[in-house]
């Protein structure tokens, strides 16, 4: 096991982590400000990927597709918030879960109706289509490095937005006391729409960047949604800082598990079974970590006010 391989896996873990952060930042913001459990967040991820693939295919430019993914997911977010989600803020979580689950089905079948059942083609831009040689002779895809960079930039941008701007101030105030800031004359309905659209746009961005690495297909959002929920539960629901830390933790633990556990299992059982045993344990590792963290800190790493 060479140091280069370890560094490569570390980068892989980071890349998975920042991608999960893009997904979970919106999810946790929406929960923090509006108290809404949004199962349809994975649908915005899918909308972003499909918008990117469709526009990239039509224009030949990945970058136009990326812009379309932001715009498309944000537009879908605004539409859903104004038409449906707005009516759910005062209902209990079970109603929200039910309604947003219905939205998953509507988005999935709607996308299938528009784009068909077969996966779409979306490739990474030629500019990033090569492998860089890192110190130590390690070859690493530039696109994945760019995804890490994008994630860091978004994290920084969100931090500045929340801590330094008027909108951020309102978001923080909204997290603390919705009624009070409404009473103080802030248009809470508009704030809700903006936060929801922002969250959806981030999910769409994640969908587009990841869609280029993976496959753009109906139902692609749900597996990521489950991981994003693990992330925000670990990080503390409502905390963006917690989402960042949780995402990196999940990304690194998941990658390390897939890499190390089959090897460790190989020490105890015959090689033919080691792969099965190792990958079996690896697939539940992040849930074990989540359970441990919840046992020690029941509200997650960065519990917000509530």
């Amino acid at each position, binding site marked *: *096991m*060479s140091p280069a*391989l370890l560094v*490569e*896996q570390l980068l*892989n873990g980071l*890349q*998975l982590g920042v991608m999960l952060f893009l997904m979970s930042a919106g999810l946790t913001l929406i929960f923090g400000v509006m108290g809404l459990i949004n199962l349809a967040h994975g649908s915005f991820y899918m909308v972003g990927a499909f918008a990117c693939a469709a526009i990239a295919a039509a224009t030949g430019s990945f970058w136009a597709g990326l812009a379309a993914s932001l715009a498309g997911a944000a537009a879908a977010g605004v539409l859903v918030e104004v038409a449906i989600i707005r009516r759910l803020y005062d209902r209990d979580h079970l109603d929200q879960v039910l309604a947003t689950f219905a939205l998953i089905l509507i988005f*999935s*079948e709607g996308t*299938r109706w528009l784009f068909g*059942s*077969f*996966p*779409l*083609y*979306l*490739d*990474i831009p030629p500019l990033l*289509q*090569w*492998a860089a040689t890192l110190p130590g002779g390690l*070859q690493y*895809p530039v*696109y*994945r490095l760019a995804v890490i960079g994008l994630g860091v930039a978004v994290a920084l941008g969100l931090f500045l937005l929340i801590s330094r701007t008027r909108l951020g101030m309102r978001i923080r105030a909204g997290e603390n006391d919705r009624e009070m800031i409404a009473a103080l004359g802030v248009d809470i309905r508009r704030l809700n729409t903006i936060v929801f659209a922002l969250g959806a746009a981030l999910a769409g961005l994640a969908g587009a960047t*990841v869609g*280029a*690495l*993976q*496959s*753009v*297909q*109906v*139902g*692609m959002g749900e*597996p*990521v949604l489950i991981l994003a929920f693990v992330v925000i539960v670990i990080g503390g629901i409502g905390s963006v800082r917690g989402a960042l830390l949780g995402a990196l933790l999940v990304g690194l633990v998941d*990658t390390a598990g*897939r*890499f190390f556990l*089959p090897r460790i299992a190989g020490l105890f059982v015959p*090689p*033919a079974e*080691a*792969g*099965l045993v190792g*990958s*079996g344990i*690896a*697939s539940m590792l992040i849930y074990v970590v989540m359970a441990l963290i919840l046992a020690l800190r029941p509200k997650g790493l960065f519990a917000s006010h509530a």
Partner: protein
Amino acid sequence: MKTTTAALTALALLTGLGAAAADPLKIGMITTLSGPGAGLGIDTRDGFMLAVKQSGVTDVEVLVEDDGQKPELAVQIADKMIQSEDVGVLTGIVFSNLLMAVAPSVTAQDKFYVSTNAAPAALAGKGCNPLYFNAAYQNDNLHEAMGEYANRDHKTMFIMAPNYPAGKDSLTGFKRYYKGEIAGELYTQVGQTDYAAEIAQIRASGADGAFVFLPGGMGIAFMKQYAQSGSTVPVMGPGFSFSQDVLGAIGQAALGVKNSGQWAKDLDNPASKQFLEAFQAEYNRLPSIYAVQAYDAAQLILSAHKTAEPSDTEAFRAALLKADIQSPRGKFSFNTNQHPIQDIYLTEVVDENGTLTNHIVEKIFSDHGDAYAAECQM
């Protein structure tokens, strides 16, 4: 007036009786039409319906329902179709875990099941059943062919599949024929979309080839990421990883990849040419092997129905066993465990005027059965 009504009622009853006498054959198709696996189900349905349409028969009714790739839903639909719709034959399931849930209950209720794709080892060996037929293959077959092919130029192989029954069948099948050294064996999560950790291990393993079974979206994700990784280890896989439904989404990264199949669009026989033309005319796309398999399943059921009703299980079974069809695959017959005996080819992904598809390179197995037939006692 009253008499007229009475007469009309009697007439209606009589015509009702008449219709009952020539009951149409009801076929229940349960397949995956929503969710990530929907592409496979849609090809299955379309291939099947093409054969029904071409046959011109009018006394056949196909009920199609979506299982959403959920075993519990598939079982419910099967029970409903058998108990309230009175179907005689069921078919269409794509995924082995769903078939394992449905097939035993179907055969226990004295109905036929003709599989269009899923073919788990458990139903080919000790668990075989006179009412269960497989028109596709046995799960291991295409992997076995790649194992045989890998023997030629590869001394060490890295092998990888998802951690579920068909994934295990896959690597078992590959190893059954591959005689070289296994540099690494890895099971990934079902539905996994990021393969960076695995790709790093393939490169580090020192293998001179990688055999990868990742159907659907998993394969798309893997191939795209593999192409970017800068790895020079050649990838090969069974036809499922590189079938027509995913090639467009993988793009150029799939070009030149060797894989295996019982059919490819350039297979030279009249039935294949006719099928390819008709499928393209009807659906305006290229068929995948799933469509071919379903097309043959429909042909088999219809051919048996010419001589017998499914309610007469002995006669219908005997008629199915004859496999009296013109398969696009060419030679097709049933083994003792009612799974196909057929040729299996090495295929290669090529760019045909901008469309990626598979072309046949050579035949790997002639009249290939499966390893489980000997365990089947019927």
